[in-house]
């Protein structure tokens, strides 16, 4: 049968399902796995849940071209067949597009993935790419962003959380390509940055890339992990 291992799965989150919260996505994926009929390990805790690990939470309303989860398998399985079965058992807007077997002992996804790239579109009266960039400079100069998350006041330093942000004018507003880094103080969400710069919410947010950054600055894609 082989040694217990993990199946790393990359999936999209788009369309109207971008409005699912992280907990809703997790529950939905666990149900997809059960429907697929793939083998999985069950924890020994009180609730005996499926053993599965997810990458960082995506904000409600944000789409993603590549989210990840690791399913703990009791033995290795054929990955092509596994992908087919998971795709058949998943809603189109959460459909897996790649999977790979990994050894059991690899770092947990949530902490390991620390660099993200986002495509964001914002719309605000009279604001173009240059205007956004000027506003961004002011926010960077302030050093940190204070914002409310539910009833709680949170603060996050702009640097080094924000690695880069390029604004260009597009037909329906200003397109931003930004890269962020998860730090001990937390992760900078695009909506928080846009709110701080423009005082409005972004029109669209899409997570277009996630990596682990090594000490020398090189990046490893979660599916490229060996």
């Amino acid at each position: 049968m082989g040694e217990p291992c993990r199946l790393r799965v990359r999936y999209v989150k788009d369309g109207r399902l971008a409005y699912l919260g992280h907990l809703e996505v997790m529950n939905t994926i666990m149900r997809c796995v059960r429907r697929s009929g793939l083998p999985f390990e069950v924890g020994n805790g009180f609730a005996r849940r499926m053993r599965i690990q997810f990458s960082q939470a995506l904000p409600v309303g944000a789409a993603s071209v590549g989210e990840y989860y690791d399913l703990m398998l009791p033995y290795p399985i054929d990955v092509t067949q596994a992908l087919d079965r998971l795709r058949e058992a998943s809603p189109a807007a959460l459909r897996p597009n790649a999977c790979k077997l990994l050894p059991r002992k690899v770092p947990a996804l949530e902490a390991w993935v620390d660099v993200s790239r986002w495509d964001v579109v914002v719309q605000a009266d009279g604001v173009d790419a240059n205007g956004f960039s000027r506003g961004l400079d002011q926010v960077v100069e302030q050093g940190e962003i204070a914002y409310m998350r539910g009833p709680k006041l949170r603060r996050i330093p702009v640097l080094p959380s924000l690695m880069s942000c390029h604004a260009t004018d597009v037909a329906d507003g200003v397109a931003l390509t930004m890269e962020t880094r998860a730090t001990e103080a937390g992760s900078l969400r695009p909506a928080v940055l846009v709110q701080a710069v423009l005082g409005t919410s972004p029109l669209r947010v899409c997570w277009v890339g996630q990596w682990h950054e090594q000490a020398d600055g090189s990046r490893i894609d979660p599916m490229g992990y060996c």
Partner: protein
Amino acid sequence: MRFARRNCFEQIEPLLGRVEHPSRYLNHEWGAQEQQDGPFHVCLLYADVYEVGQPNLGLSILYNEVNAQEGMSCERAYLPWVDMSALMRERDIPLLSLETSSPVASFDLVGITLAHELVCTNIVETLDLAQITIRAEEREQDEPIVIAGGPSVWNCEPVAPMFDAVLLGDGEGALVEIAACVRDARAQDVPRHELLMRLSRIAGVYVPSLYEIVCDETSTRWGYAVPKPGSGAPEVVYKRCVESLARTEPVAQRIVPYMGVVQDRFALEILRGCARACRFCQAGMTYRPVRERPKDQIVEAVERGLCESGFDECSLSSLSTTDHSQCAPILRELGERLDDRGVRVSIPSQRLDSFGVDMASIVGSSRKAGLTFAPEAGTQRLRDVINKNVTDEDLDRAAQNAFACGYRRMKLYFMMGLPTEDDNDVEGISSTATHVVELGREQLGPRSKVSVSISVAVFVPKSHTPFQWAGQLPLEEVHRRQQLMLHAATNRAVRISYHDAETSQIEGVLSKMGRRGFDLVMEAWRCGCRFDAWTDQFSFERWQQAAQAVGIDLEDVACESFPLDARLPWDHTSPGVSKGYLQREWRRAMRQETTHDCTRDTCVGCGVCPTLDVGNDLAETRA
């Protein structure tokens, strides 16, 4: 006005980022019927938010059944939460269905669940948001036909003016028949009134507009309903009743929600009806006779349902699951088959005896979270009055068995204000809980962490029960008895919670009133009442304001008891249980005489079987 059928999702999409739980409005769940070609379109509507309405098993059954019909499509709709409703009104967006985001007012037939009394203002809100004319009699020819059904149809008079028709009893087969009748009448361009007369000829269908309310010396102040001359409507409409549950499809729940819903698990109805005959229980009277699914069907359906849905928990649903004649073998076989898959099996209600604990232990395996029982009353005398058929010894044995099986926490449900209740019975609630704690400590040691929580509801007399003639306690008296109960509970291991007396009074009022009660419902809605079953939304002050505006004294209505021979506002609708039986049961209650369960003993003469030409349908003889 009938709305055009078109997909309006683009109208609500920009609002999703601005409301709580946008997943309420997304649709596209696994198992939802995306193809909605019709051409006859039905919308099933639950007048509460998605997470409350979606798990409703009755709606799932009907959704599947209508969608399986050639030429018929069925969608779902729920009442948006107050944040979304406000945004929709601001932008003049009508209430939309989930599957195709079409205006609810564009459907041919709209079916609304009467889940409980407190949903009444939500129904007004739903129709208003949908921009469907609220009063059925004022609806235009081309507007949707709006019908109701569900567990709370048994005194539907206070909401009856909103419905073109009300289906009494089991919906299987009946909804399709109603839909076909509406479809054919529409194809023939039949006037609305004639269409309603045709509906009234379908078994189990009550058409309120074909009845007039008569108030005389034989009735209560709410009068009684009689067919209008020439309407051809029956004097009494009897409920629809499925003869054999085993012959219906067991897997009803095919839609897997994205968001956490109130019962977030795969539910399978293993039996319908309960013959224990608790005298306060409306479901026990209105869902008769008892019909069981056989063990093999249940086990196969649970495995199939879990496999198709991906749920990790299964609930064996019914009014009294541990009464199933094959309960033990079902639970053992499911345990064997599901044990290694991390799937939990739950049973919603445990019988208050040793057997109930044994069954809970089978499904709970190593998990000993806690057990829930419903003694309902604090003394043997009062339990005999309500026909609970549970003795002090049963309770002791159940508690001892539970502690021996490793359970440390127990929850007990009681009711306050039951007919004939006195202070001794109220103090008995606290002393029963204390006694259970003591039993636990005797068994597990004086310092063991045993705890007992008790939850105490206020009795609401319901139609078609032996207690339908009783009045409710005045608010002041409920408050006094609640304090008495609190002071009688001196053991710190006993935790007490009790229902809000004011909310129960509104339930009592809505359970008692006749058709004139609709004025109160409308006025309450105008005063801002919505989501009355949500404690953070309920406002007794607004209900009082509404009652004052329409000249009703809430306490006076709720506390009024009716003479045993009076004609009641709901006498023209019947679940098959005879009024003579209910009167007999009332008299027996007053003499503290109990009545046995007819699935374990001889017939008790309730009248259901001969009236509806059905009978108890058990998989095996009950022990």
